[in-house]
């Protein structure tokens, strides 16, 4: 297994009217060739902006922390520091699409409303695969077929707004995969799909991964999907990774109180009449990030005198897993 992406200590700040906020703080993760990292966590915890930072897609008000490192190993083995690529540079354009493909959470971000789906796909295919126009059109139709769009030969000439939400999402998946990326970042790629087509699209991604050794970062709120597709998982809360490890292990045996709360909140067909159980308490304001453990304001197991004062270190009790919680440290256990 070889590491294709290594992110260390990524922090992201924004200048806002209310002052500087830091919605991502000290995030580290790696992606290996042919493997999938699942990213789950609270809405607004920084999943999308962490991955957008890799491709320099953050708005001008954003700043990366000085210690942030994002090292990508390209198809030709060259190591590239993504943070140093300049906007508008040739190298950045080569990385976007051809090396790192991104399926955006906002489906319209990848499509222009004024060109047909086909024209936009053909442009990407000609650029990254070096095909001629006619071949590119055939390739585009084939790709639309693969993501389960019926009558692809006609759909290819339609405009984005003429497709249903889920078709547009699939067209976007087809567009991104057409460029043949080595690393795929998929931000909520299946939320607009029904479960049968979702299963089909996940199969397709897995097949491509096996064939091409594609690495994947898969962002989703659906822990069922994580259980299906992810090898490893990282759980984010307020801009930090609070727990990580092999996906099945983390889901079976969650260590962090937030992960435990998240799993308890999943609606189940077996308990239709029970009220759902959200994680108690309110999400803190980004301008007033809690000191100590960021989760202490909502944690039912918090250790008074410790959790609200000191930030917990990352510890690893189970091999391959890591958690940031005082309950899993010897100091915490003796204080409790």
């Amino acid at each position, binding site marked *: 297994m070889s590491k294709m992406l290594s992110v260390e200590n990524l922090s992201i700040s924004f200048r806002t009217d209310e002052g500087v906020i830091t919605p991502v703080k000290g995030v580290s993760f790696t992606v290996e060739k042919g493997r999938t990292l699942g990213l789950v966590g609270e809405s607004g915890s920084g999943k999308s902006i962490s991955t957008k930072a890799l491709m320099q897609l953050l708005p001008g008000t954003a700043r990366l922390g000085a210690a942030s490192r994002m090292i990508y190993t390209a198809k030709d083995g060259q190591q590239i520091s993504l943070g140093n690529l300049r906007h508008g540079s040739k190298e950045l354009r080569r990385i976007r699409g051809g090396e790192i493909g991104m399926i955006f959470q906002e489906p319209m971000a990848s499509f222009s409303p004024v060109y047909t789906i086909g024209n936009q796909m053909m442009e990407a295919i000609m650029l990254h695969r070096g095909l001629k126009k006619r071949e590119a059109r055939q390739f585009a139709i084939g790709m639309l077929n693969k993501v389960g769009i019926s*009558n692809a030969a006609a759909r290819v000439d339609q405009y984005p707004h003429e497709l249903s939400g889920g078709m547009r999402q699939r067209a976007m998946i087809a567009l991104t995969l057409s460029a043949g990326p080595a690393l795929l970042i998929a931000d909520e790629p299946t939320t607009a799909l029904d479960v049968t087509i979702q*299963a089909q699209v996940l199969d397709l991604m897995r097949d491509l991964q096996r064939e091409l050794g594609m690495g994947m970062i898969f962002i989703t709120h659906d822990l069922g999907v994580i259980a299906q597709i992810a090898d490893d998982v990282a759980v984010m809360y307020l801009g930090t990774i609070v727990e990580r490890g092999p996906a099945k292990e983390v889901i079976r045996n969650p260590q962090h109180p937030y992960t435990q709360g998240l799993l308890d909140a999943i609606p189940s067909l077996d308990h239709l009449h029970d009220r759902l159980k959200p994680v108690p308490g309110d999400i803190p304001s*980004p301008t007033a990030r809690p000191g100590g453990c960021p989760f202490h304001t909502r944690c039912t197991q918090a250790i008074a005198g410790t959790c609200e004062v000191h930030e917990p270190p990352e510890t690893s009790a189970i091999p391959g897993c890591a958690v940031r919680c005082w309950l899993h440290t010897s100091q915490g256990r003796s204080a409790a």
Partner: protein
Amino acid sequence: MSKHKDTLIEVRDLSVHFPIKTRKLFKTEVQMLRAVDGVSFDIKRGETVGLVGESGSGKTTVGRAILRAIDPTDGEVIFHRKKKGGIDLAHASEAELRKVRSKLNMAFGESGGGIKVHNLADDLLRAFRPEMSLVFQDPYSSLNPRMTVRDIIAEPLIASGKYKNREKVDARVREIAARCKLNLEHLRRFPHAFSGGQRQRICIARALVSKPKFVVCDESVSALDVSIQAEIVNLLKDLQEETGVSFLFIAHDLSVVAQMSHRVAVLYVGKLVEYAPTEKLFFAPKHPYTHALLSAIPSADPDAGFDPIRLQGEIPNPLAAPSGCRFHTRCPFARDRCSAEQPEWREIEPDHFVACHYAKEFNFSRS
């Protein structure tokens, strides 16, 4: 007349067809895409009806046609008012529509856009339509980037004319924002500074602020983490209890639909295939498509087996929908009759509707 005195929305033979241009070598042909084709169902006061089905099966189109955000090609949508009686939204004039609009709302996951459109005159509405379809289920492009979140949420309230002074509007906006778990400090911000889930909550707050009678929730909780999703589901249920609002709840996450809905309807290529009380639909479905759909719900239990029924055959092209039963091209149980004869929409048990020739023979019960 509706069957029940507590019926709020009655949809009768609703059809929506779109003209589609297709390029054929040298000429362009126009074909009719039957996105919704003869759909009938009703929604009671205080009831949540779930609408599920394959992507592209026409769910959003049904929601928008009920609210007259698009003109139905055919059929009726009766909105039963307690005092003033029924009004057919499908044929109502713009002036009549204006009177009831504040009572009907859409929390498109895509949201804002739709609601705004309801306050426009018909010609404006038409001019707006292409843009509106751009905002489908997408909480990003639908929120006006130049309005603060406070103004976005307040807009339907002000349009309804119920709240005249600013303090009252502010108080109501803050109340609903807090209940939708939005940070009150954020009300002054512009939408670009919010994550997907935060925008979705803005859309929900906006749809609920004027205390409507009927809300279409189109993928309204799909971008939320499961904890906030649980909170919003609980909130929608509480509000329903308090105000008697009815919901048409469109979502792909079937566990959430089951949790929210009293009854669930399943759409396949523009036609309803099954409609039943939630427990019957989930635990004793009668239609082979419903059965296949339920088998594909991924479980968060990594030890639970996952073996969805992989439907063979192409997803039908709505421009050339299959003859007979539209599912026959992929149905594992199809027989000759299925491709020849359209199955009747019939009530095989009280409150359990299904369109399949052999529904009575199937036993798909799940424990």
